[in-house]
């Protein structure tokens, strides 16, 4: 691929037909770091986390107050409402991606949202997933990693998804009260969030932490929960409840953290961020996303060094990436994920909007439902996952459908060099020229080897 094509496709979300070619691809990418809008028009119309949380808390209260036989009805009503919020939020995400003039940063939003994945197969998360991306991820992709991590861990969606909201210190005030009162609420320590922070968000799996580190970290995190449902939440979306907190010092990865309430887990998080393992983990994932499934070791090391040197300043990492010769190799090593492919296809066709229901169906059919990776590990970022026979058939089928909808209003012969400047192979140009109809030509462009990769 040519450098403009790399900037548009490997770093961006695919060219739009009316887009001017970046004359200086690198500065075009870097200028986006200044032009990015964390809350573009499609997201502005969405309810914020405070409102979504209020709905959740209201439901909790209603369920508690409802007679036994009516609780499931309350829950169903909440899930229905959550489904509507999900549909609208997928629409906002899709429209942002289709309309964005800062597609490099938009791609980074998708990257971090997947790094800190929540999954709507946990039903209570369905209505809250959009708020998580809008309020935890979007405002912080150009800040420090630690701030991003903290926003994620304190966000109600993550607190609920990884069960932190219910975690209680076994020797906390609340636990001893509950035990004394003979209540039948067998709640205690939940290690889920602590484990995933270590394994997925920061250090990375098999980086040397032990089960004891997980348990100790989980104890330190007790008390990190949602605002109380008895009070109107107001603007708060997080609360530290001292009564739930496990008292005492904690030892994580050989370091002792003195008892100190909320600050205890914050100190652990801070140290996790400064660990070389975290720098390497993040460096490897970023390089994998932008360069190759097995990224060059030298690049990974440079990124890790930058991460450590700058205390996890994310824009510094992005600049290192843009400056890296490894990222500008002409061969496209990355096979587009279904999301990448769908968005770049729609952008190529000049679509500004897609009915949210259609976007949801499209992603379900392509095998990458939005915010539903099925696990906190998020979607895999390698060709082995996406370049599969049935998946490819579905793309061909979808390409045909999109092309038929576009009709011959779009001429693939002139579109191809605009969305893949200097990167259309002879084979593809020939196939497009020989196609028996305008829509077949367009479908062939969308499933051509160079359009399937970036």
């Amino acid at each position: 691929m040519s450098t403009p094509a790399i900037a548009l496709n490997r770093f961006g979300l695919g060219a739009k037909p009316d887009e001017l070619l970046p004359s200086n691809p690198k500065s075009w990418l870097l200028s986006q770091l200044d032009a990015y809008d964390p809350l573009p028009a499609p997201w502005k119309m969405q309810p914020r986390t405070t409102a979504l949380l209020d709905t959740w808390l209201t439901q909790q209260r209603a369920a508690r107050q409802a007679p036994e036989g009516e609780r499931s009805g309350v829950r169903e009503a909440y899930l229905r409402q959550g489904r509507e919020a999900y549909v609208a939020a997928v629409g906002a995400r899709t429209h942002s991606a289709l309309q964005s003039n800062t597609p490099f940063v938009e791609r980074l939003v998708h990257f971090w949202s997947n790094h800190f994945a929540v999954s709507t197969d946990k039903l209570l998360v369905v209505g809250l997933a959009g708020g998580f991306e809008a309020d935890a991820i979007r405002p912080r992709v150009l800040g420090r990693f630690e701030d991003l991590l903290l926003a994620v861990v304190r966000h109600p969606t993550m607190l609920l998804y990884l069960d932190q909201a219910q975690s209680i210190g076994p020797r906390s005030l609340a636990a001893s009260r509950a035990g004394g009162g003979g209540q039948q609420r067998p709640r205690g320590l939940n290690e889920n969030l602590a484990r995933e922070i270590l394994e997925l968000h920061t250090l990375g799996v098999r980086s040397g932490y032990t089960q004891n580190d997980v348990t100790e970290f989980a104890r330190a995190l007790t008390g990190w929960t949602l605002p109380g449902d008895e009070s109107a939440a107001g603007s708060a979306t997080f609360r530290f409840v001292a009564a739930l907190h496990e008292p005492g010092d904690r030892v994580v990865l050989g370091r002792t953290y003195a008892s100190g309430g909320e600050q205890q887990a914050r100190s652990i998080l801070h140290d996790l961020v400064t660990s070389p393992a975290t720098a390497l983990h993040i460096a490897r994932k970023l390089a994998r996303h932008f360069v190759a499934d097995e990224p060059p070791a030298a690049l990974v090391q440079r990124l890790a060094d930058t991460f450590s040197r700058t205390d996890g300043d994310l824009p510094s990492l992005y600049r290192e990436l843009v400056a890296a010769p490894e990222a500008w190799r002409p061969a496209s090593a990355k096979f587009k994920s279904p999301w990448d492919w769908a968005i770049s296809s729609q952008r190529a066709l000049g679509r500004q909007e897609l009915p949210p229901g259609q976007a949801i169906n499209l992603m379900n059919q392509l095998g990458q439902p939005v915010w539903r990776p099925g696990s906190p590990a998020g979607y895999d970022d390698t060709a082995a996952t996406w370049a599969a026979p049935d998946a490819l058939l579905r793309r061909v089928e979808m390409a045909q459908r999109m092309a038929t909808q576009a009709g011959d209003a779009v001429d693939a012969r002139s579109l191809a060099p605009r969305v893949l400047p200097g990167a259309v192979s002879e084979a593809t140009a020939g196939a497009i020229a020989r196609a028996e109809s305008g829509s077949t030509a367009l479908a062939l462009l969308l499933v051509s080897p160079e359009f399937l990769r970036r």
Partner: protein
Amino acid sequence: MSLDRRSFLGAAALITASPVLFAQAATERRFIFIIQRGAADGLNTVIPYAEPAYASARGALAIDASSALKLDGTFALHPSLTKLRDLYAAEQAMFFHAVASPYRDRSHFDGQNVLETGGAAPYQVKDGWMNRLVGLLPRTGKEAIAFSPAVPMALRGPVDVTTYTPSALPQANDDLMLRVEQLYAKDAQLHAIWSSALDARGMATGGMGGGAARQDSGALGKMAAGFLARADGPRIAMIETSGWDTHSGQNARLASQLKSLDGLIAGLHEGLGAVWSKTVILIATEFGRTVAANGTGGTDHGTAGAAMLIGGAVQGGRIVADWPGLKGSDLQEGRDLKPTLALDALISSACAQTFRLDTDRTAKMLFPSSGQPQAMQRLLRT
């Protein structure tokens, strides 16, 4: 996807992108234009079996005279076209040979643009001749209807055409599948994945078409007929068929394509019922294919081809051809069937007679830049 891939591929290319487009006008007559996108091979559809050069030029691709469905002492239909043979015998089908639009180059896009706009050159005219035809007819209170995700060029223009797509319309088509296969031929990763996908689905190139194609195209025909048969329904329709670009493996593919086309006509016939007697169906393609077979069991882009008029209103049982011959010296540029009949004249004459419009005025509106094409008389029963 809930779509059953077997049945949807079995539907063959005909169904694939087979949007049906309708427009309504105050007349009892129905006019349906079936476009064959991809340059259908006229020589193996309406076969000049008595022409000695046919078998020698076509070699293995020549349809054996003993299996072809003979129409007269010169021409025969492809064995797949049994319904058309019956309609010909009933004097409700009429074939035209060595026919071509004014377009003389060999690009599908450009050729289809000329065929659909009615211009003399690609992109010269901005709207479609069918849309201009609707404009010539008296209006009723009802808005025109179109069945399709997108309005094809032939129906585009100032007169409104509403669109409707049957939601179950299968979308991918054999032609696209074959082209994708070729496109991935030199890409090791994609070629392997694609081959495995085709194997897994049991739909390798050889096993397509067959009975299912005919059945599904028949269903499409009946569905379209359901709209056209209504007294308050549309009077003008367009059906798009694709998959005619047979550069390789032509015999099996064309057999399947023609079977689908035959099934489509059968479905229309059955579904239209009493309205069949008021129906005119025109079938045409952007250009024909080379006289000689190529090196890959197919034929390449040519010039003249075959067209058809079918329906209860057609004065059929005839073949119209000023036969140019197939010897080397007879051919257009030494390779193609030479055009001796103007497709423009056929279309404008058929439209004028269907809706009882003035012949000259219709020709000028539909094909403004093709001069004064020789009108063709008595295509229809009066």
